[in-house]
């Protein structure tokens, strides 16, 4: 990672620490911000946060590794989380899953080579009456069918190229 990018991240972490408070209970909100902006929580970020909150970096790692929405490894810009729980299972999540794998070219738990998509399973998304359901980042999609999956993926790609022209890309750190 370039020094300037690293400095930018440190600056961000400092801003968030001011916003949420320099105490242990601010840890989750800070980690959530880092994850959202940088698509991962790197060792360097964990060390920086630990210093600011006055705790050991291992404590930060313990928290990062506990929660499924926080990750120390790089994730795609779009994280697709397909609900695998029973109500979605009974209305055809398996076929939606298969088509997601086909269209993205990766399996569950993997990220595409271009770093754009990560495909994951999720447990109950609270859309049990209108499954199969999945989250793409924070957005929820329901009543999925294998054919709909490709539309959604295309939508993400279009959104990304639009976004990239507006703002300099943040590279995976």
């Amino acid at each position: 990672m370039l020094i300037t990018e690293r400095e930018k991240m440190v600056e961000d972490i400092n801003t968030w620490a001011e916003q949420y408070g320099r105490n242990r209970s601010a840890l989750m909100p800070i980690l959530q911000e880092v994850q959202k902006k940088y698509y991962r929580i790197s060792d360097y970020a964990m060390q920086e946060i630990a210093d600011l909150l006055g705790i050991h970096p291992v404590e930060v790692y313990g928290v990062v590794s506990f929660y499924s929405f926080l990750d120390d490894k790089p994730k795609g810009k779009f994280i697709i989380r397909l609900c695998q729980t029973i109500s979605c299972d009974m209305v055809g999540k398996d076929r939606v899953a298969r088509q997601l794998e086909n269209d993205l070219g990766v399996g569950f738990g993997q990220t595409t080579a271009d770093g754009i998509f990560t495909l994951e399973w999720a447990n109950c998304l609270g859309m049990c009456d209108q499954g199969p359901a999945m989250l793409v980042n924070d957005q929820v999609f329901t009543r999925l069918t294998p054919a709909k999956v490709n539309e959604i993926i295309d939508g993400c790609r279009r959104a990304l190229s639009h976004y990239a022209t507006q703002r300099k890309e943040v590279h995976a750190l």
Partner: protein
Amino acid sequence: MITSKCSKLTFSEIKTGSGLQAALKNKPAEVISILADSGMKGRGGAGFPTSTKWRFAAAAKGEEKFVVCNADEGEPGTFKDRVLLCDFADLVFEGMTIGAYAIGAKTGIIYLRGEYTYLVNQLESVLAKRRQANLLGNKICGKEGFDFDIQIRMGSGAYVCGEETALIESLEGQRGEPRNRPPFPVDTGFMGRPTIVNNVETLAWVTAILAKGAAWFKSVGTEKSTGLKLFSVSGDCAEPGVYEFPMGITIAQLLKEVKGEGAKAVQVGGASGHCVAAKDFKRALAFEDVATGGSIIIFGPNRDMLHVAKNFMEFFVEESCGQCTPCREGNHKILEGIEKLEAGTCSMAYLDELCKLGETMQLASKCGLGQSSANAFLSIVANFKDEILGRTEKVAV
């Protein structure tokens, strides 16, 4: 916003501010007495009387106290809290404010599951409106000395954080590992201070009870389970969605309402609940009979119940926090057993061992997750032995 099909809810009749204004006409202790009179038990599923929880917190000594709304709705098959937060967030925040008045808290926190991040903007705007209307902030409704505000905190995808002590751990910036109880949060909660943690639906009902009176609330339901309850209905029925029914409705009546007759089993209470077979559909959904947080998953005549059990156990293997041995190891063992049953290689003796293991987990696990994770498996074994034993080929789902 994606909305669920919803029966007409009583909440649509409650005017914003009416519950709080009614509460402020009483002393804090009287508010708790009104709740006690209503007989309401927590709508999250555990069924602890809300008034008792509040009374403990009100009596507890602490420089500051906290009101926490548990919006970490992660139980499979439950989505009523999402509907409430979409359509009736005002009533939920108002319930928190009433709680703050009753116990003497200045800070409220709503812990929203990470999967519901798309609700945040809308919730923030409801909070902003309440601040403008002086329903939050300083001197609420002109009441001298009554200051209270609510902040939103996000979860990050851990089911166990729905357990109240794990939720508090998470708020404190820790891994979401449940604590030993006692001490209970009403005494030693967030930051070691007295804290009430209430379910989203419970808080909305608090507002309704204050607005319409305890007598109105207990005019429906059963003696031990008063009032109305929201049910999240999914699975094999023509009209899944959120329904409001009186406590004590039988499973058969519910199935008729949602057009799910002909079901062979119903999972009541989500993955951690019980599987009720058709022969028991006359049983009532109430704390004294089949207790539930409101999750109803319906299985039609062709569903493979072993597949259902497997899905639930896979869920618990992933969501166990791993802190205590019965839950961490037990869930794995039961899942392996289900795989043996699938392959048709499980003896009756081994199945009995698995059931004993399940019972041990119920007794020996540290928190509600491990104490209930074997429920679904045990009830499916009890009801569907002939269906799950002696398999010769994979059954189509």
